[in-house]
């Protein structure tokens, strides 16, 4: 291969990686190009690790890189990976899911190269189509989607950002329009002018996102929503720090660490390995009780916001649920209940579980399609306008 061919291939390779989800900046692409000048291209190992060292910054990304490298440079299909090593054998499913994505990313990259040669109007047309399609998908119920539609919806969810309003902290930062005088800065400023002038330097309070705690029901009745909700949870877990996710059916599982995996498919695989009560019965009361006892004091500090995702169909029923909800509501700043059943026009809180829980929630919202999850933004955006509200966005689609 000539030097020019290598260079253009590397550019295509990095673009494919980026599309598959690796955070690769143009600086790294240039580094990769430069690196090829120094390594012996005839040695596969050198080339592989050379690129890896430049393009990857986290251990978690190596798997994706490996699959992409094989596909792109060696044209090897993903399925024949048995002989690679014991390390891969432990996570075959993860690789399968990931490889699907890599394949898609590189296929699109190939298509894009082709369409560059075509007329541009077709591309435009394509774009408008996607927009309307997106709108249509947003209002479609999760349970009535086809596989292809689910895939698109997942992609939209992956870009969702929850605009949890920031709360005032007790720390301050320099601000010319601030309210409190910063004596230390004032003195330093005045010394610069030999103490002639005393210009008051001011500070104002700093704002920060409160911790977000999500309690999500994964019992049988929530089955058809679970997959989409997990994608939603993955998106919000990786959006910022101080997010805790708990899953419950008949028992409570802390899935925060598993969902932290940047790769969504790997994260969901890890979650499914940890959770033992998928699609089983629901014991909301006892699960909440356990949360209150074991976790609430550890994760609900500093004005936490709690999102509770469940249909409220409790198997056990009884007073435990009401008490546990009350305790939970009193331990956090705000409790929001997302209920997929709320999509039905005539939904009435008839089930005992729902009636026991309702008095203790601050907000009650639907969660059955992409639009409803987006609407959540309104629930979280404060009604009053805080001083920095213009800089805070109501909902962001990247």
């Amino acid at each position, binding site marked *: 291969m000539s030097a020019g061919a290598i260079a253009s291939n590397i550019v295509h390779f990095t673009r494919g990686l980026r599309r598959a989800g690796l955070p690769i900046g143009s600086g790294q692409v240039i580094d990769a190009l430069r690196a090829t000048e120094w390594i012996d291209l005839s040695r596969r190992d050198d080339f592989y690790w050379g690129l890896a060292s430049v393009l990857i910054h986290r251990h978690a990304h190596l798997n994706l890189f490996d699959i992409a490298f094989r596909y792109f440079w060696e044209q090897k299909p993903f399925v024949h990976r048995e002989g690679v090593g014991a390390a891969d054998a432990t996570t075959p499913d993860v690789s399968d899911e990931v490889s699907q994505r890599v394949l898609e990313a590189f296929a699109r990259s190939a298509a894009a190269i082709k369409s560059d040669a075509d007329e541009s109007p077709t591309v435009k047309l394509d774009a408008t189509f996607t927009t309307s399609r997106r709108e249509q998908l947003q209002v479609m119920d999760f349970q009535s989607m086809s596989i292809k539609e689910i895939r698109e919806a997942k992609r939209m969810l992956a870009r969702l950002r929850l605009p949890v309003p920031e709360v005032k*902290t007790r720390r301050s930062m320099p601000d010319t329009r601030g309210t409190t005088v910063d004596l*230390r800065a*004032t003195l330093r400023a005045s*010394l610069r002018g030999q103490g002639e002038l005393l210009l008051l330097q001011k500070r104002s309070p700093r704002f920060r996102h409160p911790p977000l705690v999500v309690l999500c029901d994964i019992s049988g009745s929530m089955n058809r929503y679970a997959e989409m909700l997990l994608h939603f949870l993955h998106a919000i877990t990786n959006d910022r720090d101080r997010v805790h996710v708990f899953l419950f059916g008949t028992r409570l599982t802390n899935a925060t660490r598993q969902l932290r995996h940047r790769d969504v498919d790997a994260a969901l695989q890890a979650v499914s390995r940890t959770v033992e009560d998928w699609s089983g019965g629901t014991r909301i009361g006892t699960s909440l009780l356990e949360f209150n006892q074991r976790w609430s004091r*550890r994760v609900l*500090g*500093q004005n936490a916001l709690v999102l509770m995702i469940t249909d409220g169909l409790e198997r056990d029923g009884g007073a435990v649920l009401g008490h546990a909800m009350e305790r939970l509501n009193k331990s956090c700043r705000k409790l929001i209940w997302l209920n997929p059943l709320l999509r039905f026009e005539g939904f009435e809180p008839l089930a005992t579980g729902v009636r026991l829980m309702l008095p203790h929630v601050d907000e009650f919202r639907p969660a059955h399609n992409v639009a409803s999850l987006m609407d959540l933004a309104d629930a979280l955006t404060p009604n009053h306008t805080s001083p920095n509200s213009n800089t805070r966005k109501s909902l962001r689609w990247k």
Partner: protein
Amino acid sequence: MSIPQSVDDTLALLNRGDYVAQRSLATSVYLALRMGRPLFLEGEPGVGKTEIAKVLSHTLGRTLVRLQCYEGLDIASAVYEWNYARQMIEIRLAEAEGVKSREGIAQDIFSERFLIRRPILQALEGDLGAPPVLLIDELDRADEPFEAYLLEVLSDYQVTIPELGTIKAAAPPIVIVTSNRTREIHDAVKRRCLYHWVDYPSAERELQIVARKVPGMADRLSNQVVTIVQKLRGMELFKPPGVAETIDWAKALVTLNVSELNPEIVNDTLGVLLKYHDDIDRFKDNKVEGLLNP
């Protein structure tokens, strides 16, 4: 009083301060003292974490410097602050005297004369022969930026003041850090300390504690008290009673001149042990009797 020479010495030392410690805790304390490392104590509220620092300062004859953490705690209230009012007066004086050198003024007003020492700096500049005990209480209440600031203090016993330079403790203080675990403290802080999880005491040890702290109490009564408290801890309450609550309850019973527990008196004084309505609610309608029967 010099620091103990063995774990047994440490146990005896704590014992002199009326602190009945488990051997594991005494070992941690001993190592922290010998190795000159901070001791990080974590545990449920009311198990005697803060008490350790108080007892150590008392029995070793050191001053106790206490820093209570809270959200937004900053360097100005934890470490040092400049005396701005005096500094400004100094500038005006310098002007009046016709001092023209800018450097001179700056050097003069950022000298130790104008420094207000807050707990951490006080602890670092303590008495050479008997460095103080520095108690950093409930670190989990402070926020992460403050935790990060502590790293320098905990690993090297020094603070850096930009205008003055680095101030290093000539003799490192005895540092006790406590946390109620309302959030996890960063590993970087824990790594610089010896860690000990302070657990609820066993029934036997709790009896000893009650005997120590409430001397005038009849054996039979203190037995009953400890049995009930131990039972309550096994009941999955929202907030199980700590040792502090046990002692409070024992004192309350002595104050009321109770010689033997009955359901009525337990019901009336339950608020000393349990501080949540849900928890107290579980014992209404004669359910207290279940506690009294073995």
